[in-house]
């Protein structure tokens, strides 16, 4: 039995029945990392000693007859823009290559509290800015389904780790699609929760009104288990919402009868790869056959979403990344004349090209004389985009679309043209602008590469997403397919 192939809930059963130990499970995952990470390059840091210590503690609990939580002993990867006390957290930037946080993010504390073990820190596009993980300052992560292709981004390491069996579940962050796109490209389940559902405390900020942490997993049940552990109000994040976290696993019902599903026609318009379109249409037909009402609808401002996002996100980033000045932590350039020279050289030597581009774009959008024309304009269009969703959700319980018009592209294919790269997020970014939950589940293959189905719901209605996703999964086998490595 290959333990690294199993899901968290399957492994939990084996742990409780004492058929395996948590230590054995963690060693199996580290063996897998050893065997395949040369090809995948999912991790920037491994935390084996910490994981084995955590695992042994879970084993002691099991031994003494204590009830363990569903994630106890389960090996989890954490995106390297999420702070981990005493463990290197780099955001995959030269700027933070030596940064050891003195505290852990709230999500990491919650996972620790649930007994999950941490395999290591996963690769990402520098400061989560990118759609392919090619912007990592360290190395490129490869798609386990075809190592000449990108895993998607920015949470490419987190998605690839789960797809390759190098972790059972993982955490990513999603500002414009950074969980859903890699989940789609790597054929795993990925969820961006409602804005405010999960604490951002300890997440290295990119665009604070859009960023949200969420889970990757092999199936919907694991997704619900992870979500339950990481969600909930946190006084340390003033934008985290006060709401009672439901037991998400309770929504996993194999039943979509009567569910009203809208399919925004703008998301399946021109430019979509015909093979992807076919897979999506087949998935919709499947949901209809299972009793859901599926019809086409419209989100009229969709075409403006990318432009809106590429003003708001860089504007917020230019402000968030102003903190990297070489004074309190991170990189500092040597041989500088005065403090301004030190700031300039530090930032020029340590930020990568895409990060610099977005800082300048954001600075432009916020600068005197352009603020109204760019930033304020984008905030107004954001209202229109949000209203599109409000209107759609008056009529539908759920919206469904592709995650991306294509499957994973080749490494290097889009690196010369930033705009072309930005277009990978055309189906995912509106969701962040509206703050609603969005999910990617495996729904088939196009030319041998996984295709993700995007489910979008009302604010804090992760329940309906999980229910529909679970039903689809129970009636299909796509989530069981694994890449050969």
């Amino acid at each position: 039995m290959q333990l690294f192939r199993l899901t968290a809930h399957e492994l939990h059963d084996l742990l409780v029945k004492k058929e395996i130990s948590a230590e054995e499970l963690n060693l199996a995952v580290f063996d897998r990392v050893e065997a395949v990470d040369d090809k995948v390059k999912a991790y920037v840091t491994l935390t084996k000693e910490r994981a084995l210590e955590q695992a042994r503690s879970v084993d002691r609990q099991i031994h003494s007859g204590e009830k363990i939580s569903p994630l106890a002993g389960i090996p989890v990867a954490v995106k390297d823009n999420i702070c981990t006390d005493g463990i290197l957290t780099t955001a995959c930037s030269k700027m933070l290559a030596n940064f050891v946080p003195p505290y852990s993010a709230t999500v990491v504390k919650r996972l620790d509290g649930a007994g999950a073990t941490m395999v290591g820190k996963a690769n990402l596009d520098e400061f989560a800015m990118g759609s392919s993980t090619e912007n990592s300052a360290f190395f490129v992560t490869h798609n386990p389904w075809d190592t000449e292709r990108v895993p998607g981004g920015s949470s490419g390491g987190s998605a690839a780790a789960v797809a390759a069996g190098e972790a059972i579940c993982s955490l990513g962050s999603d500002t414009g699609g950074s969980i859903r796109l890699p989940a789609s490209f790597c054929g795993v389940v990925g969820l961006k929760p409602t804005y405010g559902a999960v604490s951002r405390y300890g997440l290295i900020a990119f665009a604070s009104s859009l960023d949200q942490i969420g889970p990757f997993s092999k199936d919907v049940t694991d997704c619900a288990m992870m979500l339950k552990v990481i969600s909930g109000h946190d006084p340390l994040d003033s934008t985290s919402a006060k709401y009672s976290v439901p037991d998400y696993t309770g929504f996993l019902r194999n039943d979509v009868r009567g569910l009203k599903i809208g399919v925004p026609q703008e998301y399946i318009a021109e430019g979509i790869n015909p093979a992807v379109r076919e897979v999506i249409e087949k998935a919709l037909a499947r949901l209809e056959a299972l009793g859901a009402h599926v019809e086409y609808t419209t989100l009229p401002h969709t075409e403006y979403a990318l432009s809106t996002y590429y003003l708001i996100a860089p504007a917020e980033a230019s402000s968030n990344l102003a903190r990297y000045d070489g004074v309190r932590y991170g990189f500092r350039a040597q041989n500088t004349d005065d403090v301004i020279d030190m700031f300039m050289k530090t930032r020029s030597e340590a930020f990568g090209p895409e990060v610099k581009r977005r800082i300048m774009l954001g600075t432009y959008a916020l600068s005197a004389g352009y603020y109204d024309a760019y930033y304020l304009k984008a905030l107004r269009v954001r209202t229109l985009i949000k209203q599109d969703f409000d209107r759609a959700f008056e009529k539908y319980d759920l919206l469904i679309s592709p995650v991306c018009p294509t499957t994973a592209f080749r490494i290097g294919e889009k690196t010369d043209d930033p705009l072309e790269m930005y277009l990978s997020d055309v189906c995912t970014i509106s969701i962040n602008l509206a703050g609603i939950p969005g999910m990617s589940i495996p729904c088939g293959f196009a030319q041998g590469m996984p295709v993700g189905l995007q489910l979008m719901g009302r604010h804090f209605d992760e329940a309906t997403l999980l229910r529909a996703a679970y039903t689809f999964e129970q009636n299909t086998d796509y989530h069981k397919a694994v890449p050969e490595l």
Partner: protein
Amino acid sequence: MIISERDVEQLAFLSRLDLTAEDKIAYTKSLNAILDYLDMLNRLDTDTVEPAAHVLPLKNILREDKLQPSLDKEQALANAPEEEEGAFKVPRIV
């Protein structure tokens, strides 16, 4: 062209970035391509639309102004590139 090389130079300075001559040419090109694309927003009349800085109906979150434990000095300085006598050290300012 929406922005010139000179504009990019000024933007870089505002962003505290030092660009090489080569960088300046490349960023002028890519930023213009992006701004060209973003120009589509001007097709929309938004005069009567309220801006949405935030998606949740959150107002200012306040707490009691009470002293609470935080990082001690040693931890706060642990990642400092340079420190002296318990303070962050920076190059000459004036």
